[in-house]
């Protein structure tokens, strides 16, 4: 026989039928069903194939630990593999498919592995596929992976949305069973801000399956009443469908809310999953306990189920497990199931209790009792048909179609161990318990080893109240309800190796690890718990040993002749259950993958035909293609030539800009820069070099003195934030005695470089003031008005190109209009916009450095700035370390220009420099090319390089060697200034 739906009972809504499919077969269920309960109600025992041996598997649990009933739900982009049927709510149209079987679940070719099982024990792969070594990646691994595995992810894009959110509370209660509800209520009534999270679709935990009476009413009535009161408290938030998966520093918990995993077509305005970061002042785990399987032969045959799960299907979902049901247990808890089965008209054919002296208070059923006995083997293929009962050396066979087993309980303490705490074995509880001294986290109820509904309610209420009191919320101890009909474990179950076992006795269902595998691991020297885990794979995969770990440890302990405490456990780490990449990603994909930082001149550049390049988060215009131009180089060459002949306009808004004020601003700058700044006159700009403490150059840029105590510093784009942090550190930590104040104004100004021989002519039409060479010479800096006083900006006569050039900064929202005005004013003078590529060519031609050269290894003298370093200043950052002997060595790599001997040839940045005729070896390496480009001015490729004694070797022939590409280009070292070496153009 098979399981079936009872005609009445359960918390399902029988007036709301649902249809769904499993492996293409249409089936029916009800609102309130899980996929697992609906499958059972439809008589489906066989729901999956095992990982290695492809054994038929049925539903084992009713919760998060399910190792067998893993299915692929949905289709196309919504395909979700490895979904636990026990956790999946049923919805109209749900499509479920079995996994790891071919051609079908019923007839699976892979099950031949079961016949080969004598050869497939733990360690088989390691021992067998050792040679030839080359075959492992090409043959063995692909074949093994094909044969063994779980579900397959889809290659299609996920059409649904995910999001992340933060929450803050006084008390987070994890688990909304009796304990958690009592705790939340006690703390909530006291006024604490409480979040109550539960991984199941409905709050209630064990109360949803409980038949004991609470204050004379049903458990579900009590639950409804409690939830109603909690819902009425504005300071309490109940979060069902929310799995708290990790405990992190700062008492922050990670949780995933399954917002729309129970609907056929998710609403587009809602995420399907929402990841919560919950910052809790205190947290209480009320996560309950996991029932342990018993390790007997065939304990994985469909029809064998955990007793608590069977009770849940019976009472919550109205599903009977079969007609001939047996129960095997080593503790009292399973007798509650026996009583419930009898009430449903199914008298168990036997209760096999491993304890010879078992006497259960509260159970008065009619089932045959077999005390001091064990189920040694279950029999059947795709469905359970009988069991062998071992008692005092005798074996009896009994026909059954369902078997409930209970091997005791393991407190669910995973979260309590996520921050490094190790579980502690308790002989008294026969289980691993949470470590002591968890700061900000307490445990209550079954996860603290407490048994029975009354005790859990009492413990939950007491701990909820106590934690609220710690936070300053005083409440009153609640009046606890009276419980009747509850069966409480008189003593925890002790683990015993079951005698008389003949078949495979599975310890880890999901990884197909059976008892003999663990024995083999011990015999072969892998008895340490960490080694045994790797050798056998017990405790791995998606369930992370929730059901298997304690049994595995007990078997290892037995085999090694030590106690479970001495064996210890492996480490619990987040995540408690698998978390989708979607939830972890949230909205950070596609358009929202990372923020875009736009220049105020972005739209101006766009309408002028810019091609953009991502520079950090900035979108910079790289070049401006014109019709007829076929490649980027053509555009860049034109822009460069035009800037040197006529005029070019370039967006330099991305440069870091920092305003510095205060009485001691000059002194501050004098200490920050290695060159002198104290006497910079008002109205002047100066190039500055900023060193690190170790003497290496950190950043460069110009700083202008706008008023006596007001400076405007520019930094490189890449180091804008870093320099700001550096300056704040200097001001706050190094020299708090200086009156200096800093403000980042990068975004305030749209800044444009107007470059070229006609720059002044064009600029004169924009700026109101006299900007003749006499009135506004090179390195002038001033606040200016534009267009007859309509706009006020800042003008700097600085040049990064070697041309007559200015940079004009205007308030950002005026940027586009001013740039438009430049294009209009300059149209008669041949103005063209140019991008960062042309900017780079112009600066390489002029021998100006950027962070290509300022790469953390250079001191000022390496770049020809030795004379800039002040010898007279008492101190500046980097002064002491710059004096180190090695930084003055004549053998240092120093800046030099490089050109190919044959102008038709080229080379790449990153190429290395070899002396002419030297062999291409690391030992002969003399430096490397830092920047390179095609120079329209020179008519060939040019480069800047850091080369040993570079400045002394101008004119020397060398070999430019690209070892990665095998390219050799004969070249010559030259001056790094290819354009206007006497700087005449700067001063015209």
């Amino acid at each position, binding site marked *: 026989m098979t399981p079936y739906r009872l005609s009445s009972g359960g918390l399902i809504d029988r007036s709301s039928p649902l249809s769904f499919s499993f492996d293409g077969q249409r089936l029916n269920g009800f609102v309130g069903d899980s996929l697992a309960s609906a499958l059972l109600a439809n008589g489906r025992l066989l729901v999956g194939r095992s990982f290695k041996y492809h054994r038929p598997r049925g539903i084992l649990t009713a919760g998060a630990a399910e190792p067998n009933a893993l299915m692929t739900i949905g289709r196309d982009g919504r395909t979700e593999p490895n979904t636990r049927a026990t956790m999946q709510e049923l919805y109209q149209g749900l499509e479920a498919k079995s996994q790891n079987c071919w051609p079908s679940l019923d007839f699976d070719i892979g099950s031949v592995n079961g016949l080969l099982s004598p050869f497939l024990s733990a360690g088989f792969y390691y021992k067998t596929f050792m040679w030839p070594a080359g075959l492992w990646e090409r043959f063995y691994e692909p074949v093994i992976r094909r044969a063994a595995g779980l579900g397959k992810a889809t290659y299609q894009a996920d059409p649904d*949305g995910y*999001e*992340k*959110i*933060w*929450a*803050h509370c006084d008390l987070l209660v994890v688990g909304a069973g009796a304990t958690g509800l009592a705790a939340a209520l006690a703390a909530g009534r006291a006024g604490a*801000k409480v979040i109550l999270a539960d991984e199941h679709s409905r709050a209630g935990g064990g109360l949803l399956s409980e038949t004991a009476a609470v204050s004379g009413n049903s458990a579900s009535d009590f639950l409804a009443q409690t939830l109603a009161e909690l819902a009425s408290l504005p300071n309490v938030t109940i979060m069902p469908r929310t799995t708290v998966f990790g405990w992190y520093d700062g008492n922050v918990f990670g949780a995933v809310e399954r917002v729309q995993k129970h609907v056929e077509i998710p609403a587009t*305005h*809602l*995420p399907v999953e929402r990841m919560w*970061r919950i*910052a809790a002042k205190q947290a209480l785990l009320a996560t309950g306990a996991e029932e342990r399987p018993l390790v007997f032969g065939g304990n994985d045959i469909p029809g064998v189920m955990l007793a608590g799960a069977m009770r849940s299907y019976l009472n919550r979902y109205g599903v009977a497990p079969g007609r001939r049901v047996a129960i095997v247990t080593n503790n009292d808890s399973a007798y509650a199931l026996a009583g419930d089965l009898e009430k449903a008209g199914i008298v168990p054919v036997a209760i096999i209790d491993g304890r010879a002296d078992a006497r259960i208070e509260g159970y008065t059923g009619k089932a045959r009792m077999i005390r001091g006995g064990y189920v040694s083997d279950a029999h059947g293929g795709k469905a359970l048909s009988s069991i062998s009962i071992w008692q005092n050396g005798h074996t009896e066979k009994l026909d059954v179609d369902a078997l409930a087993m209970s091997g005791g309980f393991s407190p669910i303490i995973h979260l309590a161990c996520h921050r490094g705490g190790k579980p502690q074995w308790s002989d008294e509880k026969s289980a691993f318990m949470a470590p002591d001294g968890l700061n900000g986290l307490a445990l209550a109820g079954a996860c603290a080893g407490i048994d029975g509904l009354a005790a859990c309610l009492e413990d939950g209420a007491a701990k909820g109240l106590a934690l609220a009191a710690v936070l300053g919320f005083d409440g009153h101890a609640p009046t606890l309800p009276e419980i009747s009909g509850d069966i409480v474990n008189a003593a925890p179950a002790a683990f015993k190796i079951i005698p008389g076992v003949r078949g495979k006795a599975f310890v880890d269902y999901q990884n197909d690890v059976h008892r003999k595998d663990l024995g083999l691991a011990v015999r072969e020297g892998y008895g340490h718990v960490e080694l045994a885990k790797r050798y056998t794979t017990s405790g791995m995969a998606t369930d992370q040993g929730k059901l298997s770990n304690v049994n595995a440890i007990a078997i290892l302990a037995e085999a090694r002749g030590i106690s479970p405490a001495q064996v210890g456990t492996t480490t619990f780490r987040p995540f408690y259950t698998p978390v989708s990449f979607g939830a972890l990603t949230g*909205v*950070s994909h596609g*358009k*929202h993958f*990372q*923020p*875009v*930082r*736009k*220049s*105020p001149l972005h*739209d101006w550049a766009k309408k002028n035909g810019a091609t953009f390049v991502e520079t950090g*988060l*900035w979108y910079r215009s790289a070049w401006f293609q014109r019709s007829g131009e076929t490649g980027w180089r053509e555009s860049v060459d034109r822009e460069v030539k035009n800037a040197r002949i006529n005029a070019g306009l370039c967006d330099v808004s991305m440069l870091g800009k920092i*305003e510095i*004020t*205060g009485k001691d601003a000059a002194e501050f700058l004098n200490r920050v820069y290695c060159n002198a700044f104290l006497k910079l006159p008002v109205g002047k700009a100066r190039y500055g070099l900023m060193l690190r403490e170790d003497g290496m150059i950190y950043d460069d840029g110009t700083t202008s003195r706008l008023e006596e*105590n*007001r400076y405007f510093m520019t930094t490189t784009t890449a180091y804008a934030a870093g320099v700001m942090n550096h300056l704040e550190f200097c001001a706050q930590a190094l020299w708090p005695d200086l*009156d200096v*104040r*800093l*403000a980042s*104004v*990068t*975004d*305030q*100004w749209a800044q444009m470089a107007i470059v070229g021989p006609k720059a002044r002519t064009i600029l004169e*039409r*924009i700026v*109101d003031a006299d900007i003749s060479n006499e009135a506004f010479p090179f390195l002038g800096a001033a606040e200016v008005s*534009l*267009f*007859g006083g*309509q*706009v*006020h900006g800042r003008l700097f006569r600085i040049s990064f190109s070697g041309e007559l050039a200015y940079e004009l900064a205007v*308030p*950002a*929202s*005026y*940027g586009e*209009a*001013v740039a438009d*005005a430049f294009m*209009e*004013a300059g149209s008669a003078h041949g103005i063209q916009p140019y991008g960062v590529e042309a900017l780079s060519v112009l600066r390489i031609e002029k021998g100006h450095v950027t962070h290509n050269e300022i790469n953390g290894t250079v001191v000022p003298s390496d770049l020809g700035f030795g004379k800039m370093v002040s010898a007279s200043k008492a101190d500046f950052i980097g002064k002491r370390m710059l004096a180190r002997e090695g930084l003055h060595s004549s053998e240092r790599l120093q800046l030099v220009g490089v050109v190919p001997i044959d102008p038709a040839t080229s080379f790449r940045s990153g190429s290395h420099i070899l002396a002419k005729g030297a062999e291409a070896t690391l030992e002969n390496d003399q430096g490397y090319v830092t920047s390179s480009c095609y120079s329209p001015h020179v008519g060939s490729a040019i480069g800047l390089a850091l080369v040993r004694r570079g400045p002394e070797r101008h004119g020397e022939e060398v070999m430019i060697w690209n070892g990665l590409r095998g390219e050799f280009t004969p070249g010559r070292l030259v001056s790094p200034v290819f354009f206007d070496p006497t700087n005449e153009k700067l001063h015209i």
Partner: protein
Amino acid sequence: MSEFRVTLSPALGGRAAVSRKGISVEAQPEGTLLHLLVDPTMGDAVRLAADLMAAGLELRPLTTGQWFAVGDTALAHADLAALSATLKPQADIVDQSHGRVRIIVKGKMAARVLSKGTAVDLDIAVFPVGHATTTLFGHISAHVTRIGEDAFELIVLRGFAESLWDELAQMSLEFS
């Protein structure tokens, strides 16, 4: 080119307010936003407040010795210079009116929507009206001030304004 008429291109120009159930997101006009850098030995907010209120500006605490002063209308260049002179030597003004963009998020669900971006606890008991801090909304740094029981003002760098706007639109989608 005094005949040339300069026009403004606000960072969020053309963005209609996002209005959903219990939440709205609205870009403020690019009026005035001044960064006040106060001499720690001379100034405090109280002494500054009167002069700023006279100029139609409100104060937002930024960090030790620093405030933002915000207003919906732009101060003329001369008025800004005058205000700057008035506040000296107590405080230096750095004009950030174009460098920062103000976005108002308001409605019953405002705190919930913002909590999708920031780790700051926005519960009114912890973060009362007038309270402000700088935080990250997703990957974007912004300054947030509670300006009403259910209203927040975000101040963000101009370059990130569009991205933050898109994030807020996404974050509030739940209430459409």
